[in-house]
């Protein structure tokens, strides 16, 4: 009961609060604001989906990277192959037998398909044979000189080049 008989000042404040409370009505755009907030949170949730839409870009970048790696491997293989070719050529041309010849003289250049024997010598073979692994560039002259100019690994695509053995070499 004591509590019902409040201080006159407090009682006055309580009446004011009660009056404000009766006058307070829910905002008309509250629902709209709630919808807006919910929609905003949905947009935030759907942001990863936007990132998902960049997937083709990442795929393209990954493909490009794979392509670059493949190109690197291919170029590396070609460089290695070229190095082997030049090494073989250099090894032979650095040791040319019978360097001395008369000028003018008559010489003919040939390309001869050959393979290595287990003894390390070269044997001429049919170019269509599976064993034709090298082209031997040979120069023969009517001053008695017969020289191997260079040894070049055969290109498998050129195996069936239409030659039936020794072919002339354009100098």
């Amino acid at each position, binding site marked *: 009961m004591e509590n019902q008989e409040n201080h006159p000042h407090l009682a006055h404040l309580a009446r004011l609060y009660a009056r404000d409370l009766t006058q307070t009505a829910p905002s008309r755009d509250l629902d709209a604001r709630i919808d807006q907030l919910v929609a905003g949170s949905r947009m935030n949730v759907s942001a990863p989906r936007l990132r998902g839409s960049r997937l083709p870009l990442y795929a393209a970048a990954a493909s490009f990277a794979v392509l670059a790696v493949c190109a690197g491997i291919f170029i590396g293989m070609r460089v290695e192959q070229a190095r082997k070719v030049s090494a073989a050529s250099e090894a*032979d041309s650095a040791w040319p037998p019978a360097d001395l*010849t*008369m000028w003018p*003289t008559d010489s003919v250049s040939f390309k001869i398909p050959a393979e290595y024997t287990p003894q390390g010598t070269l044997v001429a073979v049919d170019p269509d044979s599976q064993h034709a692994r090298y082209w031997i560039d040979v120069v023969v002259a009517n001053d008695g000189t*017969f020289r191997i100019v260079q040894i070049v690994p055969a290109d498998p695509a050129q195996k069936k080049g239409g030659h*039936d053995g*020794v072919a002339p070499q354009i100098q």
Partner: protein
Amino acid sequence: MALRRRFSSWFVLAGALALQARADDAAIPDCPPSPSQATAAVRPEPNNVRLVTGAPYSALGTSKTVTTLPNGDRVVRENTIRQWRDSDGRTRSEFSLSSIGGPRPLEINTTVTVIDDPEARERYLLQPASKVAVTVPIVPCRVNPSLEPDLSVGPPRPARLQMQVSTPVKLGERKMDGESVAGSRVEATIPAGAIGNDKPIQMSAEQWYGKDLQVVVEAIYRDPRTGETRYKLSEIHRAEPDARLFRVPDNYTRKPAPAPRGRR
């Protein structure tokens, strides 16, 4: 009157033929004396072929190389070239190749026939198995008989290979199988260390050149790396060879040689 007209027409015809012959001669340049003496005006072209006319012959050239191995064994390699040339300068060469020496010797055992036709400016390599004549363009050049051939360092070799070549020494002239030949000799040295050698490598070449036939009649090459090679032209006949030798057989198909994979 008719006789005079006939005479003048013959005169005009002869003059025209002479002019044509001179024009043909002018179309063929002189061969350069040697690669080292080549100038911008006279420089060897790819596929240069010497044109020697009016000196037909047939002969057999034999090249024998004897290599002595470190264990004392001897390896003998012999290759032959049967050669013909007619008065117009067409040539036929039959290369019987058995083995070509070098750091990696090549065993072949085949005969290759090559016909050079300077007039057609074509070289034919006969492939009997497929009845194909592979054709290669050639550029004929005329040998200047007044220029004595030099012994020179022959076909191009790696620029980095150092080699000191002496001035050719003339060995005089002599008769060999009825042919007047002039001899020359050069010495060449690969200095120590150039190819991993601890001592200088001495080589020599001696060649006897036929002044009428304009071909090498005899040659000796000494190279400690490969041994000694002796070349000799024998069975020399100066008669005009059978014209059929210089023709591609009718049953052969002519095919151009494939283009090179990039010039060296």
